[in-house]
């Protein structure tokens, strides 16, 4: 029922390396606590090894799913519908001054 896929680089069990975890943390803007990196690496590896069984599925004749009910995205007229409510929205902002969000310096 299944045929093997032509994805050689994934044919074996996935083993993440330390630099992979660092790279993922960078991409996801997520600081990884140095003391937790090995436990995290083990858990992520076990999850990836588990999902790796997908590689055995024969999907050569299948189009990827775009919508569960096979429908197209509904469109709406290109008109402004939202009023400016920045004061209301900024009530949830941790640091605001004179209507501006405060962040560390971004330019030297």
């Amino acid at each position, binding site marked *: *029922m299944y045929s093997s*896929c032509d*994805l050689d*680089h*994934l044919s074996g069990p996935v083993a993440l390396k330390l630099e*992979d*975890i660092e790279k*993922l*943390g960078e*991409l*996801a*803007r*997520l*600081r*990884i*606590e140095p003391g937790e990196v090995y436990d*995290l690496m083990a*858990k*992520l590896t*076990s*999850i*990836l090894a*588990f*999902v*790796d*069984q*997908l*590689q055995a*599925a024969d*999907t050569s004749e*299948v*189009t*990827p*799913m*775009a*919508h*569960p*009910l096979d429908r197209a*995205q*509904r469109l*709406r007229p290109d008109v402004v519908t939202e009023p400016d*409510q920045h004061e*209301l*929205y*900024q*009530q*949830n*902002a*941790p*640091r605001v001054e004179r209507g501006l*969000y405060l*962040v*560390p*310096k*971004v330019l030297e």
Partner: protein
Amino acid sequence: MHYRTLAQSAAALKARSVSSVELTKIYLERIARFDSTLNSFITVTRDEALAQAARADERIARGDDDPMLGVPIAHKDIFCTAGIRTTCGSRMLDGFVSPYDATVVERLARAGAVVLGKTNMDEFAMGSSSETSYYGPVRNPWDTSKVPGGSSGGSAAAVAAGLCAGATGTDTGGSIRQPAALSGLTGLKPTYGRVSRYGMIAFASSLDHGGTLTRTAEDAALMLDAMAGFDERDSTSIDEPMPSSVALLETEWESIRIGVPEEFFDDGLDPGYAACVHAAIGEIEKLGATVKPISMPNLHLSVPTYYVVAPAEASSNLARYDGIRFGHRSEAPCSDIRELYERNREEGFGAEVQRRILIGTYVLSAGYYDAYYLQAQKARQLIARDFARAFAEVDVIAGPTTPTPAFGIGQKTDDPVAMYLNDIYTIGADLAGVPALSIPCGFVDALPVGLQLVGPHLSEARLLKIAHHYQRETDWHLQTPEAFD
């Protein structure tokens, strides 16, 4: 009074044998008495609830007979509520107060339902045990050393213990049906797009379904009629008329064809659980149904497919939490904005959420996208085809909701994959977007177990009718946990 169904409470309110304020006070007192044990609520909105109840009583006095009017319910803390904090079970949103109501919240409020508070849940709905919440684990009223299921575990525990008449939930991989099964309730996940996602905090947008946790199918129909239907603010909302589920409940039984997938009765299924499910299917057969075995050969792909698609969508949806416009902000000194983002997100997100963001980032990254994400979306199509093929032959698919009854708190927290496998029977319906529900069908070791019914797209009203007819013949759904009487 507290174990009345939502329909019974509505009838009592209509007959003026109790007022909404009286009913609301009964539930608030029960929450005060029992919730320190269960931890099912994150926020209790006592004053707002009493004010809503007083307004409902005025409407009742004027002769308004909206079916949900004055009935106390709770919302999963994933639904945005204007003026009341919405945390999604996360430190990231600990102080977040939404500027607007979710469509579900708005519609139930318009129907006159009283909101007792916001229920606890796995952080960002990522979990099957309600243990990953920043606000601590929820306990199962049937055995407080066990989990209530998740991620809608607070809603499940609150309804099961009689702390509210019904509650909203969300189901991305089983998060309504699995806790319903583990807590002895009726849990409905309608067709994808039937319930608006507007104001429902996004986890995996192509899989997120709003729904209900109630004692009975009749109660689920009442809530669904009030909250479902087209919403132009949700781009994937189904723009079609929504037939009344309540109206269909009492209509005459028509013979149905039930398919029982052999793949649902695998080695992982508890034998006692299997016996309960077979007995329940036999009971429905007696109502007038033919039962035949079917095969869903791709169903085994559903959990691995889900754990690619859902984290991928989550990593994208959760990118918005930067701790600058809203959300948790670190107190640590940060030299630049990038470090601030990284600190805010590290401190704001719990371990399971972080793992899913990282897995999602991995499967979407250059070089891996085709092998993981694209392959998973193809596998998802294979699973959807299995359902379509089955529904060409049968009207309903029946099987267990979960492999086992409730497991112990802490039992699976260190093994993500073991936790994920708890949703092995529920995930398929989310991937295919078809409606499904879980109803109580027995007990194993004094813990409730669930029968799952799955139907073709848009058939939720029919599933509720079948469940309602089953519940007229059985009393599993009327059992209540002794410790909370």
